């Protein structure tokens, strides 16, 4: 009898939750997200044009150097926004205890793995014809590899714990420790010999102005793409969480 009553009551309470739900799904198609998506596609097409056609061929390295624009863009995203957002949201979660921050951190870590993978694979493809070897234990390469391991460990930790505040707490702690670790990793590996080309030399040399423009456009385009994918992914997680909650209300005994 009690069960029947609860059931009725929760069902009666449920519709608003689902309306909220519908708003959520509609929200995924909201204008600014669409605009962000369209903008990132256009920006990437433009960046492709600049990188492949417009930018001059590098005198020493040849055409392979054209890989560099997106390689650097991916590396920037991996080390900068992706990991930064993971760490910032980890701190925010521990502070505010709002699971939304946890969802943002997890989405950003996923994107981080993707961009780190792109960096790690395009690097050797570029290095092979230039340095004659796919891999060198150069600081930047090695740090990126360690970064990749930290991202993957973060995601593995998440997959090993059931969703909820416990998972959020544990992964936040790991995210923070990992983020603090990366600069130290970089420092420690830098005290080895460096053969990685310096991208933007301090005295302004190194890169022709046209190339620099192409590089910045590529970075901008990838950052837009990152923002778009992050928003889409976080909204998915939000929706999945709401779905879970409604379903739980419904089937609660």
């Amino acid at each position: 009898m009690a069960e029947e009553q609860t059931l009725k009551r929760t069902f009666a309470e449920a519709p608003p939750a689902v309306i909220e739900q519908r708003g959520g799904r509609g929200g995924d198609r909201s204008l600014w997200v669409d605009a962000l998506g369209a903008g990132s596609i256009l920006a990437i097409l433009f960046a492709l044009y600049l990188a492949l056609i417009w930018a001059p061929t590098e005198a020493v390295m040849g055409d392979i150097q054209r890989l560099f624009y997106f390689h650097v863009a991916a590396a920037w995203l991996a080390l900068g926004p992706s990991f930064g957002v993971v760490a910032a949201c980890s701190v925010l979660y521990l502070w505010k205890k709002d699971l939304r921050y946890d969802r943002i951190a997890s989405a950003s870590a996923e994107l981080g793995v993707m961009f780190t993978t792109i960096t790690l694979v395009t690097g050797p493809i570029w290095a092979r014809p230039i340095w004659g070897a796919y891999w060198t234990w150069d600081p930047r390469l090695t740090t990126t590899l360690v970064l990749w391991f930290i991202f993957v460990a973060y995601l593995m930790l998440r997959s090993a714990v059931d969703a909820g505040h416990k998972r959020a707490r544990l992964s936040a702690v790991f995210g923070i420790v990992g983020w603090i670790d990366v600069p130290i990793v970089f420092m420690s590996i830098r005290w080895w010999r460096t053969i990685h080309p310096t991208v933007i030399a301090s005295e302004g040399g190194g890169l022709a102005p046209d190339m620099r423009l192409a590089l910045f456009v590529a970075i901008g385009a990838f950052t837009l793409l990152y923002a778009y994918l992050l928003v889409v992914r976080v909204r998915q997680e939000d929706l999945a969480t709401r779905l879970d909650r409604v379903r739980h209300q419904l089937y609660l005994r």
Partner: protein
Amino acid sequence: MRVRRLWKYYGHFPALRGLDLELERGRFLTVFGPNGAGKTTLIKVLSTQIKPSEGLVEVGGHDVIDAADRVRGQIGVISHNTYLYPSLTAFENLRFYGRMYRVSDLEERSRELLERVGLRGREDDRVSEYSRGMQQRLSIARALLHEPEIMFLDEPYTGLDQHASRMLRGVLDTLHDGRRTIFMVTHNLEEGLEMCDEVAIQVAGRICYREPIDRVNREHFGDTYFDCVGGGHKWDS
């Protein structure tokens, strides 16, 4: 002890749903309830082992979140888990916990408690060599080391033999001296009704019945209980 609109979620599952409870100093309250009613969750929230999701919880006049260490200092917990280190001896276990609680005259106090739970002479044996009943008795001594004002008992009779149960009853009897607050949860009606001043029944994360013991009809308490658990007409209102 004061609990107001206490909610505890595990994921989306609410183990405690807006539970209200008050217990005066010096009273002995037994909470009954079927499995899954959230009894252990309640005791864990009260004893600062888990944090409440929502609501206000005060134990011994202190908030369990803001003043957790204050609360911890004045409560003793006896559960079906003994919290004893199996590779250490009984005496070493007491010494460890005594130091953690900053108990003064620890040696003397340990000896006295070991006497009280009938483990004198076995204090230098490792806990792993103890029987379940002896471990539980030592666990009682451990919980009493710092002379807590408030005792929490979570199914304390589980897995105890005759001797140990009797011992536990005797210890509870001496503890129940009008100054100490005792809070016990159990699903065993017989043992639960024995010494308490007040009785409550918890179903589905809420308290649905609460009476002083002298207004409880012992013979028919079983019916009351099953009415509550099975019917649940009270907890909805």
